[in-house]
């Protein structure tokens, strides 16, 4: 029941708000509070899920199953494992933050805005908890509708173009996935006599290598567009730049993760043979994306666009970790998804604050903000450092693990990906420097108000989590470890042992050095050093 509640609650909230009369915006205030309350309750539900989650088990938990369309073997079948658990929590966390971020900046059509945000949350959680491919597809497509409206109605100047582009790009990828899903169900009926969209049953399906190739491509393209993987990324800068702050936070924080989540949950384990064949190519694209995104981000005059391109770069690490398909890589990938959700969500949030105050996002319009807004500067610095992968902050663990995993797989990728780490420091720090440090040259910036209480409420949790994820990674790594382990074994066992095993021995065996142990060692070392220095 609890898991069903996590996605039906926001939906019920949306419907309730839709039924409220709101002539001339008289009830705007009440609707804002109601939406926030609903999203906080949902967040609480996701936290309860986490608290009750058994971290030692690799199985799906909180499983619920009711027949939905029995004629086709379609069930309402949901459950979460260690991989999806934290993504659900992340969704629960970012939605209230998105609502708070638009407390003042969204003035028109507050009612509809709240409806769409809550509907979006319902669909996003639905995507992460679905274990039935049909149900998954329903949520996946349903999610586009509220996002489309959020960008198209409350966005900036080019919003309509961006909204339509977002919708068509994503749909074009996902309909081919629908064909592959239908094909899978059909194959299941060929093999067993009945249709089924049950993910766990489909995992065990024996699929011919040639078919695997086509189906894998159909899935992978859908997810690659969502990630977005180079060269499918062109919708992202448009959507991000045009979306309102809340839309950007959710887009960067959660929606992009659905692409990488889909790769981990569906594309790789369903078609292990084809995945093994295509993984190096996808990794090449991921690495190109890492460097390309970083290079393009370096020359952006617009802060939002810069952060958008940095997402292309950061998600390249996630994809690289998934392609490595060993415990370290995948665990790093999932960790990086969470970390990126927190830090990029935070960056968009704070860029949005600046943009609300000045109605511009151009870096050249700012400078020396430190003297006017010291608190925002401090928060921005923490998130910036988190984003570039500073040790003891969240980004470091994710990037480190993905690169570690990739190194075990093929060190050549790591050499190039390492460039991306350096470049990310260049563009992020130079933005920080240009915006916050130096003399306050533009007089318009002199009297900007610093963080208000409402803004504190959004910024503080993100900074705290960024630090917590950097210092105590095992809290987050522990629950996902058994699930990741099983997933990797599932994919590896579906691969031809001769071809892969001969060249890269011990892909699975090397898991004796568990990521949690490695990172703990590093963190405690860093803490010791820091303590020693403080002692001097």
């Amino acid at each position, binding site marked *: 029941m609890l898991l069903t509640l996590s996605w039906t609650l926001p939906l019920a909230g949306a419907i309730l708000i839709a039924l409220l009369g709101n002539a001339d915006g008289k009830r705007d205030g009440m609707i804002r509070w109601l939406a926030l309350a609903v999203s906080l309750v949902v967040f609480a539900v996701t936290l309860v899920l986490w608290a009750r989650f058994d971290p030692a088990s690799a199985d799906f938990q909180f499983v619920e199953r009711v027949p939905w369309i029995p*004629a*086709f073997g379609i069930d309402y079948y949901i459950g979460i494992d260690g991989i999806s658990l934290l993504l659900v929590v992340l969704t629960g966390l970012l939605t209230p933050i998105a609502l708070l971020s638009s407390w003042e900046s969204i003035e028109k059509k507050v009612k509809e805005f709240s409806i769409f945000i809550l509907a979006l949350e319902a669909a996003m959680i639905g995507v992460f908890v679905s274990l039935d491919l049909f149900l998954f597809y329903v949520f996946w497509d*349903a999610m586009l509708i509220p996002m489309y409206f959020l960008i198209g*109605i409350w966005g900036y100047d080019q919003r309509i173009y961006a*909204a339509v582009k977002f919708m068509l790009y994503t749909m074009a990828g996902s*309909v081919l996935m629908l*064909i592959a899903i*239908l094909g899978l169900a059909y194959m299941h009926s060929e093999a067993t006599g009945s249709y089924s969209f049950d993910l766990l049953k489909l995992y065990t399906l024996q699929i011919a290598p040639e078919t695997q190739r086509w189906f894998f491509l159909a899935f992978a393209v859908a997810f690659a567009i969502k990630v977005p993987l180079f060269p499918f990324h062109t919708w992202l800068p448009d959507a991000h730049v045009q979306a309102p702050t809340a839309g950007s936070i959710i887009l960067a924080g959660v929606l992009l993760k659905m692409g990488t989540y889909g790769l981990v949950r569906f594309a790789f384990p369903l078609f292990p043979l084809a995945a093994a064949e295509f993984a190096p190519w996808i990794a090449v694209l991921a690495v190109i994306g890492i460097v390309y995104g970083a290079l393009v981000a370096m020359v952006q005059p617009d802060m939002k666009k810069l952060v958008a391109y940095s997402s292309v770069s950061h998600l390249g690490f996630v994809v690289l970790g998934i392609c490595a398909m060993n415990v370290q890589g995948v665990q790093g990938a999932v960790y990086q998804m969470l970390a990126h959700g927190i830090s990029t969500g935070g960056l968009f949030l704070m860029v949005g604050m600046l943009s609300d105050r000045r109605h511009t996002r151009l870096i050249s319009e700012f400078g020396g903000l430190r003297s006017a807004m010291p608190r925002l500067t401090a928060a921005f610095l923490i998130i910036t450092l988190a984003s570039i992968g500073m040790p003891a902050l969240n980004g470091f663990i994710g990037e480190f693990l993905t690169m570690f995993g990739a190194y075990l797989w093929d060190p050549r990728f790591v050499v190039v990906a390492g460039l991306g780490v350096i470049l990310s420091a260049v563009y992020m720090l130079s933005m920080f420097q240009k915006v916050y440090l130096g003399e306050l040259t533009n007089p318009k910036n002199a009297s900007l108000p610093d963080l208000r209480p409402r803004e504190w409420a959004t910024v503080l949790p993100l900074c705290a989590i960024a630090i917590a994820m950097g210092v105590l990674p095992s809290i987050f790594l522990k629950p996902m470890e058994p699930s990741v382990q099983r997933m990797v074994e599932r994919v590896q066992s579906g691969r031809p042992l001769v071809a892969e095993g001969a060249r890269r021995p011990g892909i699975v065996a090397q898991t004796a050095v568990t990521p949690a142990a490695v990172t703990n060692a590093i963190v405690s070392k860093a803490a010791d050093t820091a303590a020693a220095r403080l002692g001097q």
Partner: protein
Amino acid sequence: MFSAELDAIVPMLCVTLAALASMGAEAFRGKNERLPIGGLGIVGLLGAAVSSVLLWNRSTNGFGVIAADNFGLFVTLTLVAVGILTILFSAPVLERDGIPAGEYYSLVLFAIVGMMMMATASDLLVVFIALEILSLAVYVLTAIRRDNAAGTEAAFKYFLLGAFSSAFFLYGIAFTFGVTGTTRLAAVGSYLSAQAMTSNPLILVAMGFLLVGFAFKISAVPFHMWTPDAYEGAPAVVTGFMSTGVKAAAFAAFARVFLSAFEPFKAEWVPVIAVIAALTMILGTVVGVAQTNLKRMLAYSSIAHGGYLLVGLVAANDAGKGAILFYLLSYSVTNLAAFGAIALLGVKDRANDELRDYAGLWNSHPALAALMTVSLLSLGGLPPTAGFIGKYYIFIAAVSAGHYALAIIGVLTSVISVFFYLRVVVMMYMADRGTAEAPPRVAGLGMAALALSIVAIVYLGVLPTRVLDLAAASIATIF
């Protein structure tokens, strides 16, 4: 109820009586007297619905030519829904545009009688008679606004091309009779399956002619030319009616003739219809993108939807048996809602059916805009709507039958079609109205009808099981 022979035609009788009553009411109506003629029609349609439900599972046969089997009854019930929604949408529109209610409703009801007959006919000649009954009524309905030149032109085109198609159809019947010596579908089927090995080439000619006749009625490419003009010229409610009712009836007869009588020749007709289906989906969608008139755009969209239905016909295997029926129902409700919304927004002298007329509709008519958006999303096949389940059903049938190419064309054209449905949504929600005058307030009855169809769309999209099972079980009666 009566004798077994009469039982089968009770649904049609109910509607016929209602139609006659509307004519009578109009004839004896005092000047300026207002009569609830639409209500009469609804009573008749409800009678048809009740009698269909009572006939369910009984497979009665009337006079050897009307088969009230579950397949026919499912389509009959779909047509009842089409009829009721049409009448509800029409009521405010007739008053506004000054269309004589008696004539209008009796024509609508007669057309529905023809449609029901077509859906249940089990003899080629009766199919033809039914086709003529419905066609004549719809030709007149197209030109019901006599002072409107566009409507007259549309009716004329529709009539000329429709007459051509009837001739083709009749030729097809003649050839079939020439080869098999009968026009009863069951007899034709058993003759052909006995002769399948030593086939007479004339039967292919007969099939070809029948195919052309049906293709005209369902506006499949390349026989779709009349559709955009007729749909644009007719009043929006009539367009909604004919784009759903006529298509449903024609498809029902199409499926019955080809899946039962010509089943032995499946290997011959499947490739032909597959090509037509692909062309229909592609042309309907691609040309639809370029339209700026909403009715014209939806005309092309309904051509494309005919293509999806053809895919369902091609892939009528175990998995997708019910696909045609479910899709007919979901498409009918959805398309009627879309055209109904257009009709409600018009004023007497201005149809308000250009794309730019919808700018900022959200501000002046929030509820109507929201409901119309749902119907457009359903046409585009987005979950959680009836259109999504319908398309999904068609595509799984296609995949199961090995027609991957058709399924891929289908999904890609759906994405393209989403583009033009979204253009309307963009207009309604994201564009400013500017200085142009906002459309007038919309009648409550019309809004109620719209809300009713939206409820149906969402119900079919979220809890489709019952209707899916019904559809699958119904079509089994003609296999």
